């Protein structure tokens, strides 16, 4: 049915050829981008250097390739069988990091052995996806029962909480991307809409103030009550929801004004346009937009970027690597990259829907959720639509942990989806 399925003798048998190709393309683009952003215009002759960023990344790519091949070779059943154990081990590992980990850039989320550093939280994403797949695919689970949802939320809240303990807010948010999976598995649409409403209320509270938020909520309440047409039960429910949202508004306001550190508040202010501080918190975002914006339609050409080479863009190899692509390959390069990601995510969803087992489907949605969420946050922040939240661009950002984590996620899905 799919190309590649004929190659039964090869280890890639059944693995989706397109997905593999997109994976390879993204890894390649990522490496080129890292090479470019560490490119030193001053060096006359460039010797290949394994200690430089691009060299180290190449090593990680090779390690990931080996891991990928191993996954394709082993028996796919072990993922379902050991999902629980993998999950527990990973949770233990990230918890240990909270106490014994190395502190890099303010986040205590690293294991350091010599010059080698690793972020186990990347593995936790994979483990949680597996665990959720196992949890939801157990036939006896009655999805209509709320306790099951509480349990499912528990599974994502544990790593998210630990991530927050590691001061890694970005990764903590990633675990909430599994709500996409939940939605697919039947989670109440109303609750999701309420969640989205909560985000909007949050934004209004921060951007304007709590009174605006409450005013908006009141308008919504009146509209809802008119639609409910005198149904007392529903009107009471509306008021309960309204009341809890008003409490939420006050909570947010309290957290924003009292709990957040000034620099965190500044970050949030900046993204909401509340403050202009071109040399401070706004600087990074500004530089990121300048780099991308200066790329034009076709870009400045590979290795000809200026902003992403001269350290104007912060974290230009890691979280802001998209700037390098935007600057050197322009609008055309940017949409091709987004196109590749979207194709990958949609391909995973399509393959998941066609999967033989619930486990594969649910796991597939988990993978798609994580990749899409990373894409959504990472590109959104570089173009100033989302607050700056430090999470990597899948397969492209510099970093072995993330490379290995996404390789595990994708190759496991390739393996599972190949097992018809």
């Amino acid at each position, binding site marked *: 049915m799919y190309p590649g399925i004929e190659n039964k003798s090869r280890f890639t048998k059944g693995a989706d050829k397109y997905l593999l190709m997109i994976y390879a393309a993204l890894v390649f683009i990522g490496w080129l981008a890292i090479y470019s952003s560490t490119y030193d215009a001053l060096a006359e002759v460039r010797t290949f250097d394994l200690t430089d960023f691009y060299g180290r990344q190449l090593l990680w790519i090779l390690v990931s390739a080996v891991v990928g091949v191993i996954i394709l070779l082993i028996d796919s059943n072990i993922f379902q069988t050991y999902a629980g154990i993998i999950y527990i081990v990973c949770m233990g590992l990230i918890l240990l990091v909270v106490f014994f980990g190395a502190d890099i850039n303010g986040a205590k989320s690293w294991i350091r052995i010599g010059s080698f550093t690793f972020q186990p939280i990347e593995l936790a994403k994979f483990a949680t996806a597996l665990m959720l797949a196992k949890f939801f695919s157990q036939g006896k689970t009655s999805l209509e029962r709320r306790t099951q949802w509480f349990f499912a939320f528990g599974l994502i809240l544990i790593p998210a909480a630990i991530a927050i303990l590691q001061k890694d807010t970005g990764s903590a948010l990633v675990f909430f991307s599994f709500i996409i999976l939940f939605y697919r598995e039947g989670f109440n649409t109303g609750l999701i809409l309420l969640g989205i409403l909560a985000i909007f209320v949050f934004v209004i509270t921060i951007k304007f103030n709590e009174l605006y938020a409450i005013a908006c909520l009141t308008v919504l309440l009146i509209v809802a009550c008119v639609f409910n047409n005198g149904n007392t039960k529903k009107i009471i429910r509306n008021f309960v929801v309204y009341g809890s949202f008003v409490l939420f508004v006050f909570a947010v306001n309290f957290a924003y004004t009292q709990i957040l550190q000034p620099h965190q508040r500044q970050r949030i202010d900046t993204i909401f346009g509340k403050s202009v501080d071109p040399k401070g918190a706004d600087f990074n975002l500004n530089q990121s937009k300048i780099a991308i914006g*200066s790329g034009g339609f076709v870009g400045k050409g590979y290795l000809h970027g200026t902003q992403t080479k001269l*350290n104007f863009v912060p974290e230009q190899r890691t979280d802001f690597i998209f700037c390098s692509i935007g*600057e050197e390959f322009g609008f055309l390069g940017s949409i091709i990259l987004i196109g590749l990601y979207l194709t990958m*995510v949609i391909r995973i969803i399509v393959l998941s829907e066609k999967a033989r087992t619930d486990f594969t489907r649910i796991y597939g949605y988990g993978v798609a959720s994580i990749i899409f969420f990373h894409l959504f946050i990472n590109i959104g922040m570089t*173009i100033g639509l989302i607050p700056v939240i430090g999470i990597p661009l899948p397969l492209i950002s510099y970093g072995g942990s993330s490379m290995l984590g996404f390789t595990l996620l994708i190759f496991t899905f390739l393996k599972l989806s190949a097992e018809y």
Partner: protein
Amino acid sequence: MNPLFQQRKVIIILVMLLIMAVYVIRLFGLQVVDQTYKDRAAANAIREIMVTPPRGLIYDRNDSLIVANEVVYNLMAIPKNIQAFDTFDLCNILEIEKEELIKRLEKAKVYSPILPSIIEQQMSKEDYGYLQEKMHKFPGFYVESRILRSYPIPVAAHILGYIGEITEEQLKEETYYQLGDYIGISGIEKSYEEELRGQKGKRMVLVDVHNREQGSYKNGEEDVRAVPGENLWSTLDIALQEYGEKLMEGKKGSIVAIEPKTGEILCIVSSPSYDPNLLVGKSRSKNYSKLYTDSVNLPLFNRALKACYPPGSTFKLANGLIAEQEGVLTEYTIYSCGGGYSIGNHVIGCHHSGATNLVSGVQHSCNTYFCRAFYNTVSNHRYHSVQEGYQAWRNHITRLGFGQKFNTDLPYESKGIIPSVEYFNKKYKNHWNGNYIVSMGIGQGEVGATPLQMANLIAIIANKGYYYRPHVVRCIGDKQTPNMRYTQRMESGIESRYFNPVIEGMRLAVLHGTATGAKIDGITIAGKTGTAQNPHGADHSVFACFAPIEDPQIAVFVLVENGGWGASYACPIASLIIEYYLNREVKRTDLEQRMISTHFIKTNNKPTKTED
């Protein structure tokens, strides 16, 4: 399987597509629609660095370097960028105390935390080399090289001039310059500014977020190479200049020597002078104000160009020539001198008497003769009125270079004074005749001339009728392209035959007349003494001469303020100048010594360079 929820995949995919569509629109806005980011990126990363080329050097007529460039190194610091460093190490290199270093850093911080301040000025090359190797240890510090002018032979300060930072007023007019640029302020530095400065270049460099240079932009494709300034060859004979300044030590006055055939100025001394090295580098402004406020000696005042003296008897030469040209006298015209020229009850005295012709009038500097000659010139029957007669004289004297600027390459010339007809009409209410102004005939009264104008008159006499505008630069550029600004031969309008009796008179003046002190064995000299009456004090000693008569090589004018008779100081000094220039050695060492050691004024304008 949850077939119930299968349709949700469509919603999920649609929402994903929707979000990414928003991103693509945003990217389109950022990258394609909005052009400001491109400019901001360029402003971010590309710096235009001006490259100032080295200023041209100046040589004298014998290829001696007289204005050189000297590279000095300043240790700069930007207080904000300074991080913890080994103060002991830096103090060792700079050879200063730790307290001193801390004091300087504090001062820099007070001045500005983000702008560079000088921490150590004008380090030696050795210190600089040593420091350069260790620069990485001192973040926030850097070494800046500057090119300063230096004058290997510390003379001719007025002529060479000096450079200084451009003023804000100049900046408004001159688009070439930027704040902090150096520009010629006086002398050759000013009049040949465009040749000397060269053409600034620019370098486009990439800088990183910390404004550190990271390499050239587009491999230097858009760089503009700086064009070094042209070297100049001056007309000055720097040895002669030095000698002249030595002779004028302790005296106020001026020496101007011109090569008659070309109008090239061989030396131009204004005394008191100053060491041009004083107006260079860190002590410039201090020394400048010191020189500026010396109101007694006025060392910054260039007497040779700006001082307007009564020319005295040397002016008789011009009047004699004009009278000849106007036809009021010939070589053979004799006026008898009875010891003075009477105007009513007033007598312009004359220390000589007897029948006088033009030659002996010049030889003995006869006041009577030249008063009459001048009176006859302005009262010429050719003209209907004294006004017309005076105007005719004035036209001649102007063509001889008086009462006007030469517009030469020496800045700040004075025009001198030759009054207009209107001036006298106004002064005497239209009722005047030649006798009212007759003292002008002997270079007194309402006439004023600069030493340069007088020297030029001598050059005209030496050339028998023409001159080239006096100038101080002969060639421009390493190919020694002749300076084309002053190649126009200026005619005096006096026929050359009229010069012979005047020159003969000058020759006799040196041999048996008023100027015997100028005699040099083996050199024929034509000279004319003068004693310029000075209403403010003792008369000025004046002497004008050229030599050799057969083939004039040098025309000299000397004026020693308050020096008394022309014969007393001006004459021997001019003679020594000629001897030195033509023979390259001076045999009359006694005379030389006497001239050098005679001081009329106290010169306290020799502040040394080390003074701080």
